[in-house]
């Protein structure tokens, strides 16, 4: 059974600067891995390369034994840019994504689950940053991907929203999905993680989960 994620010597350069270099690691299916490190270390680049949003300049990424770009239907990426259309309503944004990606989930249920049911018909332009993030989570729920890459999921969320993230992480784990979470809220996520990667100035290395855990 090939690992969910297999990165070999993955690097990504932006106009002369290596944002990520020589990253080699594997993540078993169903595992939840914490990714931590200082700002600008390359965490976001790492997640975006794994999600095939960014093409690696060197090395290669294979998901479930296949090239990353062929597995996009199974990947869910939550990144800083939420990808919403401002002049569509929250519900319409999800319907568009659902129709284009032929996503299985139910739009109303997803909106309910992330607490946006009342504001579903309002234009996303009127949403706060936290609400936009919840909408992004709703799209993730619609897609129900096997591999979930979360880039600072707790950012911009209120306490209730952060509780929602905890529930989703538990749910994903229960469903056997493979998750990589890049966050600074290490203590909050650590109990649910099977392993951790530390990223410092473009270098990725395996490390133990701070606090308890293997």
């Amino acid at each position, binding site marked *: 059974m090939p690992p969910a994620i297999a990165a070999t010597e993955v690097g990504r350069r932006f106009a002369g600067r290596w944002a990520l270099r020589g990253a080699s690691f594997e993540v078993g299916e169903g595992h939840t891995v914490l990714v931590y490190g200082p700002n600008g270390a390359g965490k976001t680049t790492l997640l975006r390369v794994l999600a095939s949003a960014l093409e690696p300049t060197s090395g290669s990424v294979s998901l479930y034994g296949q090239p990353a770009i062929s597995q996009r239907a199974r990947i869910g990426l939550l*990144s800083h*840019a939420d*990808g919403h259309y401002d002049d*569509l309503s929250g519900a*319409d944004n999800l319907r568009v994504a659902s129709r*284009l*990606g032929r996503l299985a989930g139910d739009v109303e249920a997803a909106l309910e689950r992330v607490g946006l049911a009342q504001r579903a018909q309002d234009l996303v332009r009127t949403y706060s940053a936290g609400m936009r993030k919840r909408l992004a989570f709703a*799209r993730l729920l619609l897609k129900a991907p096997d591999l979930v890459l979360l880039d600072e999921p707790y950012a911009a969320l209120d306490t209730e929203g952060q509780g929602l993230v905890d529930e989703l992480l538990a749910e994903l784990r229960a469903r056997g999905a493979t998750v990589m979470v890049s966050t600074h809220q290490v203590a909050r996520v650590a109990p649910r993680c099977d392993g951790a990667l530390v990223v410092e100035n473009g270098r990725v290395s395996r490390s133990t989960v701070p606090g308890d855990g293997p």
Partner: protein
Amino acid sequence: MKEALQQCAAMIGKELSHLWRARARVAGTAAFALATLLLFSFAGGMNADLLRHNAAGYLWIGLLLASTLSLGESFRVETEHNALEMLLLLPVRPAAIFVGKAVGNLVVLLLVGLLMIPLCVVLFDAAPREGVGKLALTVLLGTASISAPGTMHAALASRARGRDLLLPLLLFPLVVPCVIAAVQASRACFTGDAMGELSSWLAVLVGFCVVHWSLGALLFERVVED
């Protein structure tokens, strides 16, 4: 293959519903085009025959200038919050995204173009002698020719610095043959197709569309990949 067509249809649907929601964009483009027509009529002087002869040229130059607005806007919407990447990761085929966006831009330009015909008739006293049908067909083929390369370069420009400068700089030389063919065909519609050249000019536009729509679908992935 069927799945690809479904994605194209879904993208076109998304683009059209998006257009309906952001109707202001179409209205803005139309207002801009109509304003240029008015300016041309002032600049063109009062000689009726001259204005009638040049009506076709004014129509297409006005439409081309307006197209840079609508093309630029069609990709600002996608790059503002990186919706383009969200689509690619759904996944939606880049070629389907191209077809959707290009049809969206085509519809905007077509609506604006058709709106300009009555105004040309009034402002330049250029009653289409060959009938409005042929003129509408010319506008359809002309706008289809502009929107394919236009969509490609709008995507390119939207991701580079100096976006508003780059789009016309890249697009205008490329659409020289479309403008020539469209203007000649439109002039034949307005002032009578004495030499029977209308169908040949329309054939040129069809050829241009075939080449640039297929090239666009083929190369669009290169434009949007990161």
